[in-house]
Structures are given as C-alpha cells and as structure tokens.
C-alpha cells in the first residue's frame, strides 16, 4: 500500500517540548532549554572500563538493557568526540594521571559518571596502590553505587546525569565557580 506509513501503531516516545510560547507557525522558548534538550538526549559516552563494573556497563549497552533507548549515542572511543566519561572500575594511582589526561582531552561541555564503589571511593581496595575515588583527580557529576551496580543502576545514573545536563545553564561553564572547581583540580 502506497504511501507506506511507518509507525502507525508505534510506542516510540518523543521528547516533550520544553515550556514555551506557541502560536500559528511559530514556537518560542528559551535558548538554554533547547540546547539542554539537544545535549541531554544525545550524550556520547566514552567508556573507561577497567574491571567488573565494565562488564555490567557492557550489558547496559547491549540489546537487553539498551542504553540507546534513553537518547545516548554510540560509544566513541576517543575523548575528542565524547561528552560523557563513564569510569567503570578500580583506578590505581598509576592510572590516575592517564584518566586525568583523557578528561582533559575531552572538549567542553563534559560530564563524568563514576560507576561503582571503586570509581567512587576506592571500594574494597583500601590499599596503597589504589586511588581512593576518581574525584581526587577529576570532578565527578554522578556517582553510581554498587559493587558492581546492576545495569538498571547504571541507567538510573545516566538518567540522573541527563537531568543535570538538561537543566544546566549555558553560562555554567564560564562561571567563576566552575573555573575555581577546575583550578582546584589543577586543570587549565
């Protein structure tokens, strides 16, 4: 039958429009909200997976849990293309500077999710060789608890991050507060 009609009985959910002023042939809203909407539904993840949390993350990206449903693009294995750094696993002190380097190579705006107990606090590895939480070397936006967290937990963490991204002010990255935060990590 022509023309073919796709998705006539679809359950595909479209993103809601942000509040604004609509009329005949036009729609007006604030720039912040449009940019936030676009950013939060097309986050490009950069996985930095070192151990078992990485396995759970792979399940999250696989077809059963399918993170792409929530508006997450494909994984990009280069920091230059990505805006969401997912640190999954134990980070040793020797690996700390490398993680920092990866973070620095990402372009602004960038967000970081610490997946699991090790990335968040060092976890059970209360040891001379393990970094006691990645927030010692880079700023973290969302912490996902668990050892390792289930894919549902990781999805929840990313949804939380989407909330942050969607509501972020466009001036945040140039604010004094943000510059001070970066300087406290010795970045820039």
């Amino acid at each position, binding site marked *: 039958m022509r023309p073919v009609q796709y998705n006539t009985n679809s359950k595909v959910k479209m993103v809601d429009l942000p509040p604004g002023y609509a009329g005949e042939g036009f729609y007006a809203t604030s720039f912040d909200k449009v940019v936030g909407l676009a950013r939060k539904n097309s986050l490009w993840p950069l996985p930095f997976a070192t151990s078992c949390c990485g396995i759970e993350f792979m399940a999250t990206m696989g077809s059963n849990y399918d993170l792409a449903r929530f508006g997450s693009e494909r994984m990009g294995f280069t920091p230059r293309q990505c805006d969401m750094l997912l640190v999954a696993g134990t980070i040793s002190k020797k690996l700390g500077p490398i993680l920092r380097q990866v973070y620095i190579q990402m372009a602004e705006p960038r967000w970081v999710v610490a997946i699991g107990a090790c990335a968040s606090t060092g976890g059970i590895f*209360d040891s001379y060789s393990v970094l*006691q939480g990645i927030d010692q070397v880079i700023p973290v936006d969302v912490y996902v608890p668990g050892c390792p967290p289930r894919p549902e937990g990781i999805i929840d963490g990313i949804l939380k991050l989407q909330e942050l991204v969607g509501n972020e002010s466009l001036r945040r990255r140039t604010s004094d507060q943000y510059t001070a935060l970066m300087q406290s990590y010795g970045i820039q």
Partner: protein
Amino acid sequence: MTYDNIREKLTANFGEQVSYEEQYDMLNVTLPAELNLKLMQFLYDDEEMKFRFLTDLTATHFPDRKGEELNIIYHLHSLENNIRLRLKIYVPIETPDVFTATRLFAGANWMERETYDFFGVNFIGHPNLKRILNAEEMDYFPMRKEYTMEDPKRTDKDDEMFGR
C-alpha cells in the same frame, strides 16, 4: 637426579657456606649474598643438574630477624630433570645488596625490578633498576612490614567503618 645428589654436589663445591632444609617437599638452599651468582652459575653449568630456568624471584620481610630482615628467594627449575629448587638469601635491611642474575637469566630483569619496587632490594649491576608496577613518584617500598596495607593518605575511610 635427587635432592641428595644436589646436596652432595653443592657441599663438595661450597662446603659449609650453604645450608639445607626441606620444606613442602622442596629443597631450600640458604646461602650468603655474595655467593648467589657463583652458586646459580654452578647449578646452571652442571651437566647433570642443568638448572636453567628461573621460575620466580621475590622477597619477604621479617622485621623481627635482626641483621637479616630481608629474605630474597629464587625458584629454579631444571626442566630436563623436572626438579625444582629454592634459593634463599638473607640480607640486612640497611644494606639490601645482592648481585643481579640478569646476566644468567634474562627473565630476571623484570622480576628484580618488581622485587626492588616492593621491597627495595638493591640488585647490583642491574641494567635498569627502577619501579615497574607502582607509580614512579612513590617514595617507599610498600611491601615492607613497617608500612600499612591501607592508603596512608585516605581521609574518608575511618577504621570504624571497616571494622578495624
């Protein structure tokens, strides 16, 4: 080839300088630090024994044994006879010096670096004696008993939380 043969050969060559002990069905040979290369070379060259494979090299720290705190352990394997041997050297912690085995076994290179990294054993003549596993800016030898297992700089984990 049995442990008795090995004992005989070693005693004939090195006399009273080495001592023996059987532990977990394996012969321990304890020897003075300055003799390690000569003894390993002898075990390597001997036409019958042929200990030509270095399985492992590590150290142990005994803080209570004054004057011989660090124990350096070599595990040798004679592939032809399928027989294993443990060499032990005790050195004081102030002067943890032994000769490197890298000329004899190329595989000793990284093992000696690891032993240096964790115990601070100074392998004299090693071509590249620097840290291998730990961060280079680390300023102590973490497997020595005077250092705690835990991260000394941690602030958020108190002993109560971890039941210590």
